């Protein structure tokens, strides 16, 4: 009997698109898809805890469904030959229909926002300087000199004599190519490139924010600070786990898998550099500085550093310092000696991305106490003023990114992002298409509107009794199923799927855990700093995701503290903006290091009162109409006494 099987994948939307791969027996369909070059996402890290890797068996045999297949997909889907690709082992030749998330191309990724260079408070001192010089090749044999010495002689004093081997290899040609006219590029006085002729006009750099979910970058002119091109997309590692922890778990104690993650991000970044250069019409060889920020896990994986222990208490990173490496060591496709710089990590999961947000929001310079919240799978909170900053990282989990939500999806085309309820329910869908799911901001908005419309109470429970008090069209959307109550946002006939788009009671519970984690982070820092709500001058929401959240809804669901709405602001993609600032300015880059050592990290899980704050934070605002009042028992007793 042969030990291998043939797996053929057919695209759900285009059945002429197929690809076939040969796999060892007992590999999973997910493994097969990855070697066939098909990205089936496994948001939970291939643990059978979500349904993103759902596929359909078209022909051939697979083992009986596992418990996880049944739990995640339900009996009906399993009977229709749907399976979780991560749980299904190969035992025979099969044909599988992959179900790629539709229209992921429409994923809203927030780029840089306004030009950071327009900010008058920043000095343009990228550290990269081009010197146009004319050096003369040695002519007299008795002169005890060398090509390099002749070049150094015409460069400013203080230029580092220690020259990289690749630069050295260029010396003889460049010196003689155009009669000695050459452009010497230095980074902080160290020669990183030599070119014949005058190329002083061309000094570029790229800033990247590598997020767990998405990657965004900006190509910039380092001389003028001008933004030349924005690039970005979904982090290609996401197929190996949607949130930080499942990403770490995937690569934990397994160097090969770590390298897989690393290769994915490097390829993506190299592609983005290529795209950005093409868009701006420049050569990648003129990119001399690359600024990278990301959370501790993304940072380490990008460098190929083992993240095993980052995922375990006490969650210590391997390195926190400002790092600078030549591009060819990564490798990134820019000038071979371009400097790849990483911002420092504060502690644990308060990473280089948070550091970038601190730079961009200038919270360190504020007279009043402000807070900055990066809302994502890990919600980082920084609070303070020029007198000092505190930071913490709240494990919100992937629910706000749409994972572990029945109809959850990222903020892409077809996602419900806004909900309003009057006598009817109205949903706003990204791209104006029929709804195929619900993104994090949509989930928050929906729950806030449920509370306002009394479809749900403050405990997060869907209304069971007294539905006749609701507008009939709204009441009709509450459905009692065997798995509990669910609310139909979009009925089947209007949805872009062959089923209604609903929010289940379990979805609401997931949101409660996620938002309470972030809310508790804010409350905890307030408590440590002894700052009541009234003294908070501003809460700034950072991150691509934060910008799409309705602030009133965020207050209603208790994701953010109950401040006047004008104090709740959006800061755009602050992590990318901070990266741009550190790209354009060495002052900013070094400021980040200084700040990273001054910010005090508050470890939430280690604090005794965190649990109590977290539990308190699980409720929404509003009233509790379904929960029996505490005094009911007493009142019943009193009534019974009277009855006697």
């Amino acid at each position, binding site marked *: 009997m042969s030990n291998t099987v043939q797996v053929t994948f057919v695209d759900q939307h285009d059945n002429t698109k197929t690809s076939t791969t040969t796999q060892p027996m007992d590999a999973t369909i997910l493994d097969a898809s990855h070697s066939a070059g098909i990205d089936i996402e496994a948001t939970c890290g291939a*643990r059978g805890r979500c349904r993103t890797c759902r596929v359909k068996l078209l022909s051939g045999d697979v083992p009986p469904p596992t418990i996880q297949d049944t739990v995640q997909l339900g009996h009906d889907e399993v009977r229709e030959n749907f399976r979780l690709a991560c749980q299904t082992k190969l035992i025979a030749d099969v044909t599988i229909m992959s179900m790629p998330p539709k229209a992921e191309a429409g994923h809203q990724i927030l780029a840089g926002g306004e030009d950071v260079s327009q900010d008058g408070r920043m000095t343009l001192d990228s550290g990269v300087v081009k010197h146009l010089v004319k050096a003369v090749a040695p002519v007299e044999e008795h002169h005890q000199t060398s090509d390099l010495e002749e070049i150094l002689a015409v460069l400013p004093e203080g230029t580092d004599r220690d020259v990289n081997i690749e630069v050295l290899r260029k010396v003889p040609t460049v010196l003689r190519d155009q009669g000695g006219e050459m452009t010497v590029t230095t980074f902080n006085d160290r020669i990183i490139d030599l070119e014949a002729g005058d190329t002083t006009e061309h000094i570029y750099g790229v800033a990247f924010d590598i997020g767990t979910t998405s990657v965004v970058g900006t190509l910039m002119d380092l001389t003028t600070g001008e933004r030349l091109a924005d690039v970005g997309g979904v982090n290609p590692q996401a197929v190996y786990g949607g949130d930080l*922890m*499942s990403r770490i778990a995937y690569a*934990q104690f397994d160097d090969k898998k770590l390298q897989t993650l690393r290769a994915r991000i490097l390829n993506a970044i190299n592609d983005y550099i290529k795209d950005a250069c093409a868009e701006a019409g420049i050569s990648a060889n003129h990119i001399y500085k690359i600024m990278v920020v990301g959370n501790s896990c993304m940072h380490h994986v990008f460098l190929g550093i083992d993240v095993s222990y980052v*995922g375990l208490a006490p969650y210590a990173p391997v390195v926190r310092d400002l790092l600078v490496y030549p591009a060819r060591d990564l490798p990134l496709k820019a000038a071979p000696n371009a400097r790849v710089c990483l911002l420092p990590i504060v502690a644990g999961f308060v990473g280089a991305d948070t550091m970038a947000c601190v730079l961009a929001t200038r919270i360190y310079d504020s007279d009043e106490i402000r807070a900055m919240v990066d809302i994502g799978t890990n919600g980082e909170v920084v609070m303070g003023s020029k007198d000092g900053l505190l930071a913490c990282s709240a494990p919100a989990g992937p629910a706000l990114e749409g994972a572990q939500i029945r109809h959850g999806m990222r903020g892409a085309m077809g996602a419900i992002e806004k909900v309003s309820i009057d006598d009817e329910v109205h949903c706003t869908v990204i791209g104006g298409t029929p709804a195929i799911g619900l993104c994090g901001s949509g989930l928050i908005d929906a729950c806030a509107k449920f509370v306002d419309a009394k479809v749900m109470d403050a405990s997060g429970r869907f209304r069971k009794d007294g539905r006749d008090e609701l507008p009939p069209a709204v009441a009709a959307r509450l459905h009692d199923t065997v798995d509990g109550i669910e609310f139909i946002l979009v009925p089947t006939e209007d949805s872009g799927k062959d089923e209604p788009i609903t929010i289940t009671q379990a979805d609401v519970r997931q949101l409660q855990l996620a938002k309470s984690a972030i809310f508790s982070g804010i409350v905890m820092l307030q408590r440590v700093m002894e700052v009541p709500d009234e003294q908070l001058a501003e809460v700034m929401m950072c991150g691509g995701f934060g910008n799409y959240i309705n602030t009133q809804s965020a207050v209603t669901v208790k994701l953010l503290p109950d401040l006047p709405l004008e104090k709740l602001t959006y800061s755009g993609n602050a992590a990318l903006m901070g990266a741009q600032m550190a790209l354009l300015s060495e002052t900013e880059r070094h400021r980040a290091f200084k700040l990273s050592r001054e910010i005090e990290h508050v470890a939430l899980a280690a604090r005794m009162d965190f649990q109590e704050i977290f539990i308190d934070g699980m409720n929404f605002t509003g009233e509790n109409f379904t929960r029996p009042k505490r005094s009911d028992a007493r009142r019943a007793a009193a009534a*019974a006494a009277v009855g006697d």
Partner: protein
Amino acid sequence: MSDDPELQYPTGWEERAPEGWEWENLWKAVETGDHGYTHDRVTEAIEAGIDPRDILDDGLFPGFNLQGDRFSANIIFIPEMLITARAMKAGLALIRPLLAAMAVKPAGVFVMGTVLGDMHDIGQTIVSIMLENAGFTVINLGTDVHPDRFVEAIENEKADLIGFSALLSTTVYYQKVTIDEIAKAGHRDKVHVLIGGAPTTPAWAEEAGADGWGKDAMEAVKLALNLMKEDRVAWA
């Protein structure tokens, strides 16, 4: 089906209670988490001379189990469950000394904790309270517990069961490590091992070599009670 769970009336409670006695208020008090009132009602029941075991089974459990079932069905959530657990605890505090005096044996000795590398304990707190409520003696080792400490604790306590949760995808691995260490110490057949936590699955429980996996706190308690009926090698 799993529509709203209903209060399960303890069968035959009327015969066990004094003439005209009414438990309804206590059921409601535990359900709504009114710990002050629970305390008062239990005190009254004790003064009325009702057998502490009956106070527990007929008076406290119905309201508690109702909330537990609702919790399992996602109808109520962690805050409400904890409020009910607190009321239950208030009642138990009065009864436990009486049970001990009557030499009523605990349902079992349960050692628990969160595995090495993991600092999270909210789920564990709930499980721990629920197990105590169900009559277990619970030794909670806290978070970030080294396998050696688990082994030491089950030896010292002559534990019947051991349970550990992992709340991070990165720490589930240590559930298996801990089970392996228990086996190495030669105790695997003396304790029943339960695991749980958000990133875990029944499949993982099997792979890690556990005896059971609980979806939630309620299930963990039922599982623990069932496992107590199974044979084990006795502690020396």
